[in-house]
């Protein structure tokens, strides 16, 4: 926590270097005509450099020991994500995406969102990704398709993505240095929720939040007052209460949406060729 106050705004030079090396890495890695093994290796190297650069400019990482788990899962997520988009074979892409999901799930768990972490694995890796693979099996022609070996405007897109990431990093880095915007100073909505919350706040959670607040409120955005979100133990229960309490109507709407998507998918498919209909029904 100490570096928070000492670290000023990220060095512009570092940020620019990160952006440039990320763009170069992406360009080198994306499939294109002039690919060689060496260029891909250089790309991986540059990508690693860029990601560490972004990590360094975005935020000083504080105590490594405390965040080692986070670093690991975040690294898995990011590197797998990079591999997802640069791998030539779509099947490998899908598998790398599964790795990304695992990493994201880990990040969510570290952040304390147990339910979402598990749900991501279950829903994405278990359902959606499998569906993708099914489709790939059905649709992929034999051999590597030519369109998998080339990219569309790789240089410009890589530059755009890198610049966007640079901008995001810049603004994330400024979160610590800047005055909190007016909207963030207003009383948290969680405070109001807490009053009507189904679950009563526990005292120890409140005291812990107060302690952490003392450290950070000087320079950071004021964190919310402690609400029903206390321990990890009943996090799922809280989320369920929130979901089926305040957001019950939205849940219903989401259910209807799922139904509509199901009906729509079947309707579209049944107008297609009869031979493929059976396979596709299994997709969802």
């Amino acid at each position: 926590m100490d570096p928070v106050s000492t670290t000023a705004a990220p060095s512009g030079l570092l940020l620019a270097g990160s952006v440039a090396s990320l763009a170069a890495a992406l360009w080198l890695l994306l499939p294109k005509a002039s690919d060689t093994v060496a260029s891909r290796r250089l790309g991986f190297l540059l990508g690693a450099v860029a990601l560490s650069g972004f990590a360094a400019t975005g935020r000083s990482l504080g105590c490594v020991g405390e965040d080692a788990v986070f670093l690991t899962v975040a690294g898995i997520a990011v590197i797998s994500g990079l591999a997802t988009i640069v791998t030539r074979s779509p099947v490998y892409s899908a598998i790398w995406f599964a790795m990304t999901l695992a990493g994201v799930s880990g990040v969510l768990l570290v952040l304390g969102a147990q339910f979402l972490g598990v749900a991501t694995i279950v829903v994405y890796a278990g359902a959606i990704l499998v569906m993708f693979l099914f489709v790939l099996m059905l649709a992929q022609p034999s051999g590597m398709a030519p369109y998998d070996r080339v990219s569309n405007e790789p240089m410009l897109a890589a530059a755009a993505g890198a610049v966007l990431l640079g901008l995001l990093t810049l603004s994330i880095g400024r979160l610590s240095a800047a005055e909190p915007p007016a909207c963030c100073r207003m009383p948290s909505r969680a405070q109001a929720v807490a009053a009507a919350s189904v679950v009563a706040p526990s005292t120890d959670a409140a005291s812990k939040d107060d302690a952490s607040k003392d450290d950070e409120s000087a320079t950071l955005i004021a964190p919310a007052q402690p609400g029903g979100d206390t321990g990890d133990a009943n996090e799922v229960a809280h989320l369920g209460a929130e979901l089926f309490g305040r957001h019950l109507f939205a849940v219903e709407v989401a259910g209807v949406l799922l139904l509509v998507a199901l009906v729509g998918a079947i309707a579209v498919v049944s107008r297609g060729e009869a031979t493929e209909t059976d396979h596709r029904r299994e997709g969802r």
Partner: protein
Amino acid sequence: MIPATMLTNALLVGAVLFCLGLVGILTRRNLIVMFLSAELMLQGVSVTLVAWSRYHGDWGGQVLVVFVLTVAACEAAVALVFVLQAFARTGRLDASAWQALREESLPRVIDHELPADDRVVPTWPHLSPAGVLPEGDDSRSLERDHV
């Protein structure tokens, strides 16, 4: 609740995932990979939402992620159906196969130089047949030589 350092770290991860997904959707021409990239962007957004939710102690972010999951599932279902329909028409999963909206006087965009297919063709061991080889069409083997 999470500390501010954790917040910014998580936000950074979300931003990286989002940008990678963006680059992917812009560059990759395989429709499936494009959808994977879109899902990658959604993952980045989800991480960001959860981070802010945990930071503020507000459940709204996490609830939103639940809905994001739902909508992603719907989207995947519908979109894949369309992908299959598209494949049925062109025999390809190529986003560049559709150029009908281009200016009339312009020629079709064609890939002029394709990289060599540099994959390593695996050589499978040939075992002596045990028994009688079943009648079958070798050219229509069920096994794909490459996935």
